[in-house]
């Protein structure tokens, strides 16, 4: 993505954006997924997209939630029905790179790696990728308008259950 202008983001905006991004990683890692989902707007999208599909122009995602209600459904299923490897996630984030601002929506990209640890204490690199976020910053704080997690580790080690 091309940066639209020399970035002179107000420091208050940056603090709110960065707080949302880091807090969202902490919420996922501590299994506070309901709270994490609440940081999306009602029409907020959450997509996990293999890098190869992005490069080839294919729309198939691994997770595709076109609004918050659908993300809530994924959580319902995860809590009630899904079976997966019991594990702990640890998101490691880069500093965010500010890409543009349009009205009150900030576009920002953040690299991530996720290290997954089994319950017997063995850690492995699980996923590398970049968050392409569109975040609304208003008086009351920052919310996700859209989060697309483009993953480089698109030959997924076994499965993805908890959100990226």
């Amino acid at each position: 993505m091309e940066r639209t202008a020399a970035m002179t983001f107000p420091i208050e905006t940056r603090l709110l954006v960065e707080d949302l991004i880091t807090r969202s990683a902490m919420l996922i890692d501590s299994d506070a997924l309901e709270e994490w989902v609440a940081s999306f707007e009602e029409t907020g999208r959450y997509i996990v997209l293999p890098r190869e599909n992005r490069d080839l122009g294919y729309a198939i995602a691994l997770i595709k939630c076109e609004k918050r209600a659908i993300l809530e459904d994924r959580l319902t299923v995860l809590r009630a029905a899904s079976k997966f490897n019991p594990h702990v996630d640890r998101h490691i984030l880069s500093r965010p790179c500010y890409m543009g601002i349009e009205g009150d929506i900030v576009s920002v990209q953040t690299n991530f790696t996720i290290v997954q640890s089994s319950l017997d204490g063995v850690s492995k690199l699980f996923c590398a990728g970049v968050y392409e976020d569109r975040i609304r910053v208003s008086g009351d704080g920052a919310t996700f308008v859209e989060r697309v997690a483009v993953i480089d580790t698109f030959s997924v080690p076994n499965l993805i259950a908890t959100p990226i």
Partner: protein
Amino acid sequence: MRVSVNWPTTDYSRVPYSIYHDPEIYALEQERIFKGKAWNILCLEAEIPNPGDFQICHVGDTPVVVNRDEDGKVYAFVNRCAHRGAEIVREPRGNGTDHTCIYHAWCYSRKGELTGVPFRRGANGKGGMPASFEPKQHNLQTLKVESFKGCLFGSFDHDIEPLEEYLGPLMVDHVGGLLDKPIKILGYQRQRIKANWKLYPENIKDAYHGSLLHEFNRTFGLSRLTQVAGGYMDEKHRHSILFQFSGSDSDEVALRAYREAGVQRGELMKLNDYDMVRIIPENDKGMSTRVINLFPNGFFHQIANTLAMRKLRTLGVDEFELTWTLFGYEDDTPEMTEHRLNQANMVGPAGLISMEDGEALELVHRTTKTAQNEYAVIEMGGVGPIGDRDTRVNEVTVRGFWAYYSQLMGIAPEGAEQ
């Protein structure tokens, strides 16, 4: 190679755990199955539509270049240089007039023929290849390629039966139905599962687990043991289809049955948005789900309105990669495409009805490693002769896999069921 397997029964109702772990068996599988008398799925024609388009595929663990020549024909050859064995094509896909190895720049045509050896006659009258060197004798190993309605298959055995004969009428009917009009590729999902590859066709042929492991299936009636369903095979029992009709049972009947079986804890779960499980009727058979295995490495599914070809590549005895190629049709409306994209939430490595398979297979692989003198028990649907069943409470299709596998491997016990 002499490999023997100790089958305790002749109907494959017991499967020795060693068969998932023995490196000699793995080596023999590469020879007798993947490089033997079998048609392996390579890719879809729609992935390489134009002359020069190529894709790297794998047959077992052998890397293969599949490409289309100027005349529109598809050729496949092993991606290993005839000089010193380097990998020739390094991009997963692309377009090219020929293929040049980076090491010493030997060049190959799209048919896999050696067309160029730099400095073959030496330099300044010195060096070079001996006069006896005959490029024609150093072409790459090729595969026989055939297309079935746009799905490309390859075989190392150039004398193998014609593809349609290999597939048989049942598979021609169902896979043919899924490929009856021009398809549009929607994208890929991939996963690497740390388990022996055979656990995957077994899983795909196992109707019993569908709603016990995948509770999402049970809740939304996509697959329930109380439904009108079946597990059918071709006459050699190597390919299989599991199918069911949603709406052929009721939530009440299902809930009662699963409660009585002691596996339903509460009510069925509720969603905000039911679009994901909505079925837009599009096949004349009216089946809500069809999951197909084409021996040895190919799979097709129709789950509600998601359609995919899946293919498996082996990565040693302990791991395999699964590629899901999701597709729709050229004549899909934009709404139908969007529906298929949304329903893809159910499949693949993050799929609401498929993520569990990878986990189950890794569990089996991990714990059978240390129990190689013990056996799996496969008796659901009955023991003895192998045949079709009109129920999902059934594992006979799994025994069908072992019967054909063992014949091809030359490891079937005396008097085995076929």
